[in-house]
């Protein structure tokens, strides 16, 4: 999928990082410095939480987000404009984290020539089942000390 994305059009910046920054600054965290590439190894995740959307068409692919449940909770608070100590219901966490995958997936779709339909988002405590796809691209992000991994997979 990302093999079809023209990286040169982004003047050397990672288009997924650019998209993630747009999503965060508009919807989650207005501080543009709050989201940056993760440096060093990604630690083992506590209560890993996954959200993904699949893209159909001639170059089918998947946009997969991975983070810790605590981070998904904080992301939900950011999206809903909740205070740091306000409780987050499971349904809202699933909704919010899935919607981040949906928005990223929709924007990735815009970068792919002749894309097919985008699926509705799935959120789970385990990574997607099925055949092991090929990893095309991965961005490891640091959001205020929390790790968030965005991966593009080929489903061809």
């Amino acid at each position, binding site marked *: 999928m990302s093999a079809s994305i023209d990286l040169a059009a982004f003047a050397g910046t990672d288009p997924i990082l650019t998209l993630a920054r*747009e*999503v965060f*600054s*508009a*919807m989650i965290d207005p501080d543009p410095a709050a989201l940056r590439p993760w440096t060093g190894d990604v630690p083992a995740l506590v209560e890993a939480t996954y959200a993904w959307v699949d893209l159909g068409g001639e170059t089918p692919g998947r946009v997969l987000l991975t983070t810790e449940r605590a981070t998904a909770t904080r992301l*939900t608070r950011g*999206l*809903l*404009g909740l205070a740091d100590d306000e409780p987050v219901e499971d*349904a*809202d966490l699933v*909704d*919010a984290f*899935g*919607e981040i995958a*949906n*928005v*990223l*997936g*929709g*924007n990735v*779709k*815009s970068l792919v020539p002749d*894309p097919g*339909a*985008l699926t*509705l988002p799935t959120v789970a405590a385990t990574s997607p089942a099925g055949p092991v796809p090929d990893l095309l691209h991965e961005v490891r992000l640091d959001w205020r000390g929390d790790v968030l991994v965005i991966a593009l997979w080929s489903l061809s």
Partner: protein
Amino acid sequence: MRVLVADDSRVMRQIVIRTLRQAGYDWEVTEAADGASALEIAMEMDPDLILSDWNMPELTGIELLRRVQASGMEIPLGFVTSEGSTQMREAAEAAGALFLIAKPFTPEAFRDTIDPFLA
């Protein structure tokens, strides 16, 4: 002004409603959690505007638009969707949508897109 906000994500509906307020639109808002509900509510309330997601269960946003048009009701519909490609914008325009706002969006994007249609 009465607006119907249709999105299967409750969180996204809240963000759309918050952004409408931040953009200065003090409108009466009704929510629908999927396309079929949106159609039913639209037929009943005859809103001044529908803001609809594209990719929804039951009835997609474009199917909602076509069903509203087929009913004979003239309710303007604008998409608020994560898919803002040229193809999607052309498809939305061809189907008779008023506009397409791509997610992520800002209050400024709402004003820039919606204001011209309020004159």
